[in-house]
């Protein structure tokens, strides 16, 4: 939303100019917020109102303000944001403005520009010629780039809480503890994901190794097969465990019946080697080396796999981004059009993804650790649900609910 502050002065109450202006704002599909109002005490006293008018586009706002000026509205003078040049590559000017993940506007040359994308813990670089403003990380900024400093000329629009009772996220918007019932929420989440599919939303899964180790992999595979997953974000170890399970039936040498397989401790190393030898996960699927599991399902169903590395990784397997700065870039890029995110049993990866999300992305976090859930959902205070539970029963119930209502029609989903 774009906004402008207008001021009305005069006998705006007796002349009914104030209600007229407010009605005009609404009939033009815009909104208003009265910031200040002073009503004259005596008959001849003039009144004053300061009104923030917001509209969907700058064009709609300009046209509306032009109309309101006919009725005496004056545009309140607002200061431009202050800019300073980045002193060196990768260094912001001192006092740089630090972004939140809320929709943000910056005023330059008297006009508001929306900062793209809405990304927290960034600075704002402004290109006055192109009339654009972008949220930038350290590695994005070059010496001489103009960066916003201080808070002047900045407007942040928090996500509004919906009053709709049909919106699961905004209605519930809480954490369900371990000892609370979850079935109703999971059923509603299934319906929400179905609505997202129909609306061409994009669903991302951030998956931790516990999914494989607890045996929940088969349920995730069902979701993938039902075409409810567009992106999979995970670490090297998740992929390795999944491949180990697919090739040897174990994860970290352990069978699902809690028995250690003979020579099982070697299995994950052999799994890594197999994928490296094949030239990567996709190649292993094509060569029919990898014939089951989550990675296999992702390749079969054209799910985007975004794998990033960590300091503890063995291998890593080909396709894992090991440069952390590069990994952040890739993750941001792959999250840009995502509408729904399921953060499943992986605190570090969940926190990294949550910090990159726009505030409107609907987020579900499932973890056995209550503090992990709490930390992950705090980035999306009005768009999140946290469930403190083992990930296996959660995924099983979610997959069951979705399977009961059938797969997404093939035509509903564009192949990637």
């Amino acid at each position, binding site marked *: 939303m774009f906004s402008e502050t207008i001021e009305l*002065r*005069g006998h705006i109450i*007796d*002349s*009914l100019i104030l209600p*007229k202006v407010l009605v005009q704002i609404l009939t033009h599909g815009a909104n208003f917020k009265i910031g200040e109002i002073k009503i004259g005490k005596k*008959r001849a006293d003039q009144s004053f109102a300061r009104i923030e008018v917001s509209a969907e586009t700058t064009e709609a706002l300009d046209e509306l303000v032009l109309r309101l000026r006919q009725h*005496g509205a004056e545009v309140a003078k607002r200061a431009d944001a202050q800019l300073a040049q980045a002193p060196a590559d990768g260094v912001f000017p001192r006092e740089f403005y630090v972004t939140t993940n809320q929709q943000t506007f910056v005023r330059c040359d008297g006009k508001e520009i929306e900062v793209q994308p809405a990304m927290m813990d960034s600075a704002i670089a402004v290109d006055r010629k192109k009339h654009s403003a972008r949220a930038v990380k350290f590695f994005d900024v070059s010496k001489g780039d103009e960066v916003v400093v201080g808070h002047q000329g900045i407007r942040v629009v928090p996500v509004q809480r919906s009053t709709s009772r049909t919106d699961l996220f905004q209605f519930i918007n809480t954490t369900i503890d371990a000892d609370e019932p979850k079935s109703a929420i999971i059923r509603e989440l299934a319906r929400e994901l179905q609505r997202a599919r129909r609306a061409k939303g994009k669903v991302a899964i951030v998956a931790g190794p516990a999914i494989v180790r607890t045996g929940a992999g088969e349920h995730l595979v069902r979701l993938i097969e039902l075409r409810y997953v567009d992106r999979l974000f995970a670490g090297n170890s998740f992929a390795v465990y999944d491949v180990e399970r697919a090739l040897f039936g174990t994860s970290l040498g352990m069978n699902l019946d809690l028995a250690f397989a003979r020579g099982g401790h070697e299995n994950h190393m052999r799994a890594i080697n197999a994928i490296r030898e094949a030239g990567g996960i996709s190649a292993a699927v094509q060569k029919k080396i990898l014939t089951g599991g989550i990675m296999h399902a992702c390749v079969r169903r054209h799910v985007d796999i975004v794998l990033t590395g960590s300091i503890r990784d063995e291998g890593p397997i080909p396709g894992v981004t090991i440069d952390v700065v590069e990994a952040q870039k890739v993750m941001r890029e792959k999250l840009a059009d995502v509408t729904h995110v399921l953060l499943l049993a992986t605190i570090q990866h969940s926190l990294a993804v949550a910090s990159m999300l726009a505030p409107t992305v609907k987020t579900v976090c499932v973890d056995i650790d209550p503090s992990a859930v709490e930390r992950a959902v705090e980035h999306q205070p009005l768009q999140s649900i946290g469930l403190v539970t083992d990930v296996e029963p959660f995924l099983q119930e979610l997959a069951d609910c979705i399977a009961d209502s059938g797969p997404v029609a093939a035509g509903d989903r564009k192949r990637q």
Partner: protein
Amino acid sequence: MRELLLCPPDFYGIEYEINPWMSRARGAEAALAQKQWKELYATLSKLDCKIHLVAPQPKLPDMVFTANAGLTVGRKFIPSNFRHQERAGEAPHFAKWMEEHGYEIRWLPDDLYFEGEGDALFGDDVLFCGYKFRSDIQSHRAVADMLGCLVISLELVDPRFYHLDTCFCSLPDGTAVWFPAAFEEYGQRAIREHVTELIEVLPEEAMHFSCNAVVIERDIVLSEGAPKLVATLRDHGYRCHQLPMSEFIKAGGACKCLTMFMPQRQ
């Protein structure tokens, strides 16, 4: 005794088109215009009015419409800032004349359009002001600041009734004559809230500029062609003086447009 300012129609004519009534193809007959104006002068003179005349100026044909010279309250005169360049030349002549006659000239900022008594009419202690076609609403605030009175701003929506005095006329008993369709909804509501009784003019009578009337106590001087309004006004105890105004209606004006009160209010 009321004092009025009039301007003889020596240079009057339809020389440009700045409202829907004006058509250079349908010019005013100079002799008939003179006759009609003299009849107005005579009628007002008989009503115990002191009439002042400002000298007409060549190339300023609309100077005859003195109501648009400005607004006079007490000894203050607020000259008009005409919206159209064609009339802007009138302002210094009116201001000079008023100054020479002892009025304190209170100029509005140059960027605020205001067309005097044409868009500013008192009803009791309230100054009703029209805006959009000629005056800016911003000028109303400046006038309210200068005069320290309540100003009701009314948006005009019919370009044929481009000044407030073409569609609204307040009477001394708190009543007002008006043509509601000339105002938008909120303006209509504001008028209803501030006027105790309203006499509505029929569209066909409004087209004869019957709202454009000069009210001197119980006498009302208006253009002919509004029998129903005249009957209503007589029922309210007013004496009506109906005058032919055909040549001035061709320029979008009639009795009131040809007259400015000095002052409109003390």
